[in-house]
């Protein structure tokens, strides 16, 4: 059964290319809370500090908190990009991440070539890549532009292609960053339907978001991060109330 368990999970970012010592001193004296020197005298930023949580199958979790609270870092850590410097993390289940749509895209390649490349990045065989191509072609609605290098795409077309490729997955654990909630209005309805089915089919959803409407609509649980620590963890309404967010106005019946 899909699950995510973290015990004392910590991530520290070393700041290597700081240059002058004076800069180092100034940084340390000003922000003594999260920036510190570790035992080998490097300057490190504590991005995540001693996180303990357990997420079971069926849970829809929102990560909330201000910019720099550690939301995206936590997503990347669960995805296996950053290995923790402290604590323990166990993730059971196939992970699909919608963190950066453009990662691994090649702007000199055509849309079709990019789809194939994405398939290879995911380690798919030829048959699955063909299926991916068909799916993306249909959903993105790019038509003949699929055979044009993506360098020549408009911003909207790039978003369509990136979105279609990124969401052509069926993971058990879905990690999502908030960029998915931006896009042109025409495409948004179609995109949202696809996202909703993706979310519904996943065993676990973790989404980092500032959009409290989305959080209320999709999530059952919220984890509030502040300066790399968990400050609240519980039902969405409780956590949002703790942040001073007013409960939603009752919608008039349509």
């Amino acid at each position, binding site marked *: 059964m899909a699950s995510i368990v973290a015990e004392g999970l910590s991530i520290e970012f070393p700041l290597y290319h700081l240059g002058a010592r004076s800069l180092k001193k100034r940084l340390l004296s000003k922000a003594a809370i999260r920036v510190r020197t570790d035992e080998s005298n490097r300057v490190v930023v504590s991005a995540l500090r001693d996180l303990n949580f357990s997420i079971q199958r069926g849970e829809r979790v929102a990560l909330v908190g201000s910019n720099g609270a550690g939301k995206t870092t936590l997503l990347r850590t669960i995805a296996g*990009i950053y290995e923790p410097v402290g*604590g323990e993390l*166990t993730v059971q289940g196939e992970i699909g991440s919608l963190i950066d749509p453009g990662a691994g895209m090649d702007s000199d390649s055509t849309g079709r070539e990019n789809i194939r490349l994405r398939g290879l990045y995911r380690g798919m065989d030829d048959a699955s890549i063909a299926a991916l191509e068909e799916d993306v072609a249909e959903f993105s609605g790019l038509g003949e532009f699929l055979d044009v290098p993506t360098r020549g795409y408009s911003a909207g077309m790039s978003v369509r292609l990136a979105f279609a490729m990124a969401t052509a997955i069926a993971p058990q654990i879905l990690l999502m960053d908030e960029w998915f909630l931006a896009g042109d209005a025409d495409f948004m309805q179609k995109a949202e339907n696809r996202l909703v089915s993706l979310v519904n089919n996943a065993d676990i959803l973790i989404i980092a978001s500032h959009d409290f409407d989305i959080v209320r609509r999709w999530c059952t649980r919220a984890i509030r991060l502040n300066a790399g620590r968990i400050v609240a963890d519980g039902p969405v309404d409780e956590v949002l109330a703790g942040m001073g967010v007013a409960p939603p106005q009752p919608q008039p019946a349509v």
Partner: protein
Amino acid sequence: MQQTAALPTYHVNARDPQRGGRAMADLATGFASWRLAWALARLDLRNRYRGSVIGPFWVTLSTAVMVVGLGLLYSQLLRQDITLYLPHLAVSLIVWNTIAAMVPDATSCLTSAEGVIRQLPLPLTTHALRSVFRNGLSAAHSLPLILVVFAAMGHWPGLEALLALPGLVLLGINSLAASLFLGMVCARFRDIGQIVTNIMQLAFFMTPVIWKADLLSNPSVLLLNPFYPMLEVIRGPLVEGGVSLTVWGMALLYTAIHCGIAAAFFVRFRSRVAFWV
């Protein structure tokens, strides 16, 4: 739930990092997904020569010009018979150019993949293999030049030329080790790339690329230069009718040391690369 056991599980514990096992898994998945590295390498070449008519054959062409020009001059300067000297120079220059292109590529193979490393959990081996494949493909474009020179000079090696193949394999292994090692070191210390460029310039003159080893009164001191046995195991079978066992032994020894250092570094610091790039 019957599927429970089949679920892919990702487990890390900072107190018990299992670095060796993870490094092996990185290599294994990297090699298993060689098609990705191959596709990326071909893309790199295509993009580098985008819009160019003869593309990667520019390298062949410039090497050809170098071989003819240097061949005419140095066969006079070093008082060598040109029919013997030109095959030597052609193979030397092509192998050296390959090494000289691989090393700087190795230093940047991880930093240039920064965007991917920080977004997708891919094995680092994939990025290293990409650099190896790219240089291998690029070097393959120069192979016809060797045939042309051999034909023009009437120099045809016998079956012993096949012994150059294990030499090429050794070059590939060293290239992978260098990509992992230099790639990681240069991700952490950005000055190393510059130092490496300087070392490679010096190495070109210290290694018998243009000149021949037997011009030295004591050629065995050359064995202390790791580039020499590496060059010789490929050049010897093609040009001089074979390689001595000593040269092969030294080539294997240097490769083993190189791989050992690279492996130690890879096992220890692999998980830190995402923070370095």
